[in-house]
C-alpha cells in the first residue's frame, strides 16, 4: 500500500506483491485490487495528469522530430519552380527499392538538360517510407516528411504525388526538423560560400591568366614587331 | 377422448419410441436417450393417474415422479460416465464393438 501511495500509477502494489507473506487473510488480495481500480476511477475525475487521452481531431499530440513518413522535395526561396534543389539526377529513382519514384528531366528546345525535373512523381501507395531516397540525394533535395494525414477518397490520383504536392519550402523543413535542417542549411551555406570563393578565385585566376596572356601576347607582339 | 386416455396413449407411444431407440441405436449415448424417453413415459403415467385417476390425497404419484426424476438424473450421470470411460479405452461408443467379453 505504501508503494502504491507513493506512485499513484496503475502498477501500484507491484512491489509488495512479490514479498507475499506466508499467510494472509483469504480474499484480501482481491480487495486490494478493487481499491486500486476504485482509486483509478475516482481520481480520473479530478486529476488531470492521470488522463493521457488526446482528443485527436481537435487536438494533436506533437510529433517526434524523429518521426519520418513519405518523402518531400525541398526548395529554396519562395518559388518552387525556380528554387527547387532537385537536379533530376535520378539517383533516388534508381535506388528506390519499391521503385515508386518517376522522374522526367526537363530539357530546353535544343535537347539540352535544364538540370531540373519536368515530372517528379512519388506513388505513396507503393512507397514504404524507407528513407533511402533521402539518404542518397547528393543535392539535399529530398527529405522525409512528418505528415500523417494522407487519407484520400481517390485511390489512384490522390495517392500519386506530383511536384505540386511534393515541393515544400526549406522553411517548412526547418520547422519540421530544426536540427537536421539547420545543419543542412549551414553546410549548404558553407558550400555556397566555398563555391563563390572558388568561383571568385577562378575568376581572379582567369582574369590573371587573361591578363598574363594578354601581356604575353603583347610582349610577343612587340617582340615580333621588334624582330620583324 | 378423456384426458386420462390421451395421456396414457401418449405415454405408451413414448415408451414404444424409447424402446425402439434402445433396440436399434448403436451409439451407447443414444441408447441412453431411449432409456430417458422410457422413464419419461412412465412419469407421465404417474402424473396422469394422480390427476385423473381415483382421488389421491397422499400425492403418491407426484412423489414417485420426484424420486424417479432424481434417480433418472443419477442413472444418466453414471451411464454417461461409464460410456466415457469405455470410450477412453476403445475410442468408440459403438455398442457392437463392445464385444471383448463374449466367449
Amino acid at each position, binding site marked *: 500500500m505504501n508503494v502504491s501511495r507513493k506512485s499513484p500509477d496503475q502498477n501500484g502494489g507491484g512491489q509488495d506483491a512479490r514479498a507475499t507473506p506466508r499467510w494472509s487473510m483469504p480474499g484480501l488480495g482481491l480487495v486490494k485490487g478493487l481499491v486500486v481500480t476504485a482509486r483509478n476511477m475516482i481520481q480520473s475525475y479530478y486529476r488531470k495528469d492521470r488522463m493521457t487521452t488526446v482528443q485527436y481531431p481537435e487536438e494533436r499530440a506533437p510529433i517526434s522530430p524523429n518521426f519520418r513518413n513519405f518523402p518531400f522535395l525541398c526548395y529554396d526561396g519562395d518559388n518552387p519552380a525556380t528554387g527547387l534543389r532537385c537536379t533530376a539526377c535520378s539517383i533516388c529513382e534508381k535506388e528506390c527499392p519499391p521503385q515508386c519514384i518517376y522522374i522526367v528531366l526537363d530539357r530546353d528546345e535544343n535537347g539540352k538538360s535544364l538540370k531540373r525535373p519536368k515530372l517528379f512523381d512519388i506513388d505513396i501507395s507503393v512507397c514504404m517510407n524507407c528513407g533511402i531516397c533521402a539518404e542518397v540525394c547528393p543535392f539535399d533535395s529530398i527529405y522525409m516528411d512528418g505528415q500523417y494525414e494522407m487519407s484520400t477518397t481517390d485511390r489512384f490520383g490522390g495517392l500519386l504525388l506530383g511536384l505540386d504536392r511534393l515541393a515544400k519550402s526549406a522553411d517548412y523543413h526547418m520547422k519540421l526538423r530544426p536540427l537536421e535542417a539547420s545543419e543542412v542549411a549551414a553546410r549548404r551555406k558553407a558550400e555556397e560560400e566555398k563555391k563563390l570563393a572558388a568561383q571568385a578565385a577562378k575568376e581572379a585566376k582567369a582574369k590573371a591568366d587573361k591578363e598574363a596572356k594578354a601581356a604575353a601576347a603583347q610582349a610577343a607582339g612587340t617582340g615580333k614587331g621588334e624582330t620583324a | *377422448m378423456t*384426458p*386420462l*386416455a*390421451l*395421456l*396414457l*396413449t*401418449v405415454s*405408451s*407411444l*413414448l415408451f*414404444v*419410441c*424409447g*424402446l*425402439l*431407440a434402445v*433396440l*436399434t*441405436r*448403436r*451409439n451407447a*449415448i*443414444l441408447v*441412453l*436417450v*431411449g432409456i*430417458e*424417453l422410457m422413464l*419419461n413415459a412412465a412419469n*407421465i403415467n404417474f*402424473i*396422469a393417474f*394422480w*390427476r*385423473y*385417476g*381415483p*382421488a389421491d390425497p397422499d*400425492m403418491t404419484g*407426484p*412423489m414417485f*415422479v420426484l*424420486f424417479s*426424476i*432424481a*434417480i433418472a*438424473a*443419477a442413472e*444418466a*450421470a453414471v451411464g*454417461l*460416465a*461409464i*460410456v*466415457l*470411460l469405455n*470410450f477412453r479405452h476403445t475410442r468408440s*461408443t459403438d455398442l457392437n464393438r463392445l464385444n471383448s467379453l463374449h466367449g
Partner: protein
Amino acid sequence: MILPLLILSPLILLAALGAVWNARPVHAALMLALALALTAGLYLCIGADFIGLVQFMVYVGAVAVLIVFSLLITRPGDEAEELARRPGSLVTGLACVLPVAAVLMYAVSHTTDLPYGTAASPPLPLQKLGESLFTDYAPAVLAVGVLLTAVMVGAALFARDPDKKPTTPPES
C-alpha cells in the same frame, strides 16, 4: 382443459420420434431435450407445476446437457449410412416393439372404461408435498441423498483420468 393436451401430445410424440430416428446424434439429443421440455409443459398444463418445473430443470438443464456434452466429447459420426446399410436391425427392432405397442394400446383402450374422466385431485399443494416428503418419505429422501452422493463420487472417479498420461491418439 384438454385443448393444451391435444396440442402438446402430438408435439411430444414428434419430438420423441425425432430423437429416435434422427441420424445425427446431436440432433437426436436436441430432439430429446425438446421432448422433455414439452413434457414439462404437459405437467404444467395438468396442474403439476412443481413437477413440471423440476422436470424442466433436471431433464433439460442437466440430463440433456449432459448427453449433449458427452456427444461432443466422443464425437460420433452420423449413423445414417449405417442405418441404411443394415435395415435388419430396424426390422428386428420394429418386430420387438410392435407387439409391445399393441399390448400397451390394448391396455389403454380398456383404461378408458374407468369411471373417472375429469380431474380428481386438486393442483399440487406444494406445502403439503414438502411436509410429507420430509415426514412420511424421509427414509426415501435419505436413500436418494445417499444414492446421489454415491453417484457424484462414482461418476467423478469414473470420469477421472487414472494416470495423467495423455490419452492415446485415436486409431483412424
